[in-house]
């Protein structure tokens, strides 16, 4: 029912898509995969009328269409859940769901109808914890994603695009989404599904289209591929093992230690981080993992408890004590998107008055495997993986003793992810203590020397390396 042929697109003279063909039939889940910057989102945005393609044609039901604005794509039956949240925090859920398509009666917006319809949609999504009149800014990110999904569904579209819909979701919410996707396809709706989580791809997809460097690699039946094969297609080479080997030596001295740490969201946190080890943090959405990282980093400091080095009351104190944080939201909290790579890399050093690296920024960029390592490039033009590497470079200039990673591979492709994992191991081997928060259980289990589990702002327990996903989940979810 959908056929995109020979799609090409350039931004500022840089070609990001070229000659991509995509065919989707009714009732199918069609996955689109590829590394960061492969052009998945760009392709989806072209379908959604956000970008106009430089070349190529789009046909829906055999009729050729050209969208100059998202609203035209909506009218043609395309709905999209964007990779980034596209909600207005100051408006209600209902207003967001019907944004741009408010029902009117006698010239005035029919609020009652809007709220009823939203309520029904939410119910069909199994969401009862909030209602159509709640302000979106009061909802957690996961719930906001539910609103996002409701918004796409409310269009009654025939093609639904989901660009990394599960990124902010926890596992049980992902399950709900699965059910939903299946319900859509049962009604003959085509679903285009973009994700870096390969497990989801195999769980859901009928066919898989692989993009690499803006070009089409192939489209195949999902059943004809296994994970390794898919990765090979995406990366263009074999990735022998997923995770770098753990350190052979026992961990060294304690570099950071908390006893009874607490604040508005956390209680009774006892934690030791030792040189050379990677400690994983597991927990459900909203369990306080990010708060833990921010507390250790002085951004939302502990108000009670003991800590060595001295409990930081501000980010600067934490940095001075040798603690760094790779935030979960790169663009909002990690990077200066309009500045050059170089200025980003030197930011912490400049801000704290630390000496700038003598080896030069170029060496550092090589070390974090930025490719190509061009210090004069503006960061906003880099792929997600490369951006994450710039964040890493930023911390390495000041050589922290403890580095906290909050979702280090969120929205990062398999290739860049492997590079970041390697680097984390390398840093640990060099004597750094690493705390890693991740919602991806395989990553958490694969990387961590031990895993602490958070629940409702408290430590629910600790698990050794190599624990099973079930063990982690049962600790995280137990009531």
């Amino acid at each position, binding site marked *: 029912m959908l056929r995109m042929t020979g799609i090409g697109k350039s931004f500022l003279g840089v070609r990001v898509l070229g000659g991509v063909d995509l065919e989707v039939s009714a009732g199918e889940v069609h996955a689109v995969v590829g590394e960061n910057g492969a052009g998945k989102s760009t392709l989806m945005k072209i379908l959604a009328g956000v970008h106009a393609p430089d070349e190529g044609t789009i046909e829906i039901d055999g009729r050729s269409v050209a969208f100059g604005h998202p*609203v035209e794509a909506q009218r043609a039956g395309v709905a999209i859940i964007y990779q980034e949240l596209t909600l207005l925090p100051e408006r209600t859920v209902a207003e967001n769901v019907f944004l741009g398509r408010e029902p009117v009666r006698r010239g005035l917006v029919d609020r009652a109808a809007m709220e009823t319809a939203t309520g029904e949609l939410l119910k069909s999504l199994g969401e009862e914890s909030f209602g159509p009149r709640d302000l979106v800014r009061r909802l957690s990110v996961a719930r906001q994603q539910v609103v996002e999904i409701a918004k796409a569904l409310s269009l009654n579209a025939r093609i639904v695009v989901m660009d990394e819909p599960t990124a902010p979701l926890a596992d049980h919410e992902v399950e709900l989404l699965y059910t939903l996707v299946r319900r859509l396809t049962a009604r003959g709706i085509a679903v285009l599904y973009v994700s870096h989580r390969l497990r989801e791809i195999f769980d859901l997809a009928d066919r898989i289209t692989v993009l690499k460097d803006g070009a089409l690699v192939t489209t195949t039946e999902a059943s004809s591929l296994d994970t390794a094969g898919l990765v090979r297609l995406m990366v263009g080479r074999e990735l022998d093992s997923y995770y770098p080997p753990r350190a052979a030596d026992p961990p060294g001295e304690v570099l950071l230690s908390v006893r009874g740490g607490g604040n508005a969201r956390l209680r009774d946190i006892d934690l030791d981080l030792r040189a050379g080890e990677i400690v994983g943090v597991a927990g459900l959405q909203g369990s306080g993992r990010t708060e833990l990282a921010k507390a250790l980093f002085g951004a939302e400091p502990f108000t009670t408890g003991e800590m060595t080095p001295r409990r930081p009351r501000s980010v600067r104190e934490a940095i001075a004590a040798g603690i760094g944080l790779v935030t979960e939201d790169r663009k909002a909290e990690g990077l200066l998107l309009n500045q050059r790579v170089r200025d980003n890399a030197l930011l912490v050093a400049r801000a704290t008055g630390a000496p700038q690296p003598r080896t030069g920024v170029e060496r550092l960029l090589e070390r974090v495997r930025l490719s190509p390592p061009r210090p004069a490039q503006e960061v906003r033009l880099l792929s997600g993986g490369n951006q994450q590497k710039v964040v890493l470079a930023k911390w390495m200039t000041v050589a922290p003793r403890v580095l906290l990673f909050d979702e280090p591979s969120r929205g990062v492709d398999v290739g860049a992810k492997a590079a970041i994992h390697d680097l984390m191991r390398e840093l640990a081997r060099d004597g750094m203590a690493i705390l890693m928060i991740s919602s991806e259980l395989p990553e958490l289990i694969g990387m961590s020397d031990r895993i602490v589990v958070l629940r409702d702002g408290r430590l629910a327990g600790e698990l050794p390396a190599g624990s099973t996903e079930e063990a982690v989940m049962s600790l995280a979810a137990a009531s």
Partner: protein
Amino acid sequence: MTQQLKLGRVPAGGALLRRISADRPARPVYVALVLLVVLGWLVFALDGGTFLGQENIVGIQQRSAALGIVAVGQTLVILAGSLDLSVAYLISLTSLVTAEIMAGADANVPTAVAAALTVSALIGLANGLIVTRLRVHAFIATLGVALVVRGALDARYDGPAGSVPESFQHLGYDRIGPLPVSALLWAAVAACTWLLLSRTRLGYRIYAVGGDAEVARLSGVRTERVVVVAHVLCSVCAGIAGLLLASRLGAGAPTVGTDGGYDLESIAAVVLGGTALAGGRGGVAGTVGGVLLLAVLDSIFNQLEVNSFAKDVVRGVILVAALAIYARGRRTR
């Protein structure tokens, strides 16, 4: 689950102001207004006047009508995430267009009104197109348009010109009981705008575009159109204020808008009313409160015969203090 929800909430001890300003941005300004009215009543009582007397109430309304109408228009552009610094010159221009076309004759009134509104709509269109099509920051775009309008005024006019007929002056001077016609006009403009913002698609989209233009666009809103329409409506409001002033002055005047300081004062009134300067939050009710607050303040100043320098100091302090209070209210949600 319940515990999680509790954790997410504001601690119960949150300050009163914080709570009242949390969801309804207009509320604090009315609280302040009530307090000021009480203060005014006291001041007048001690000073031998009657604050709530008809004279004074009429005076307050008369004084606030023109600014009120402009500020309502300004609310629209600010909510849409833009800004209009050209209203003052536009007011002068429309007052002149009105008075010159009327030329003292009753028969010309409809033409003149239509012409004034058309001119202002066109200027608004220019503002909107420069902001959206040429992607010039609204601050610079409307400042530039203001300069152009000023050039046109300087080139054509050396002082008051034209005259409006007696019949048209009813708009500026008559009143129905304690309600001046000008205040009713203001109320009508405010009510229409309120309806527009809270009950029409356009209103919803103005909030959306001001809240986050990119989100609005991705959700299928034609954001540029919305911004342009907001600018056109704002300018039309300025045009209406120009009509009102022409009616009150009996003529058009090339400096009436700038002398009145309608550009910065209207912005001040809007933000006093709790509308976020960045757009997307607030509304007309707050603006009306903000304008009334300034008018009551003026009336107290008048009664106390405060000199204009002291007035500026007080106004500056109130403006900053009010915004600081709003900011406190929003910090913890």
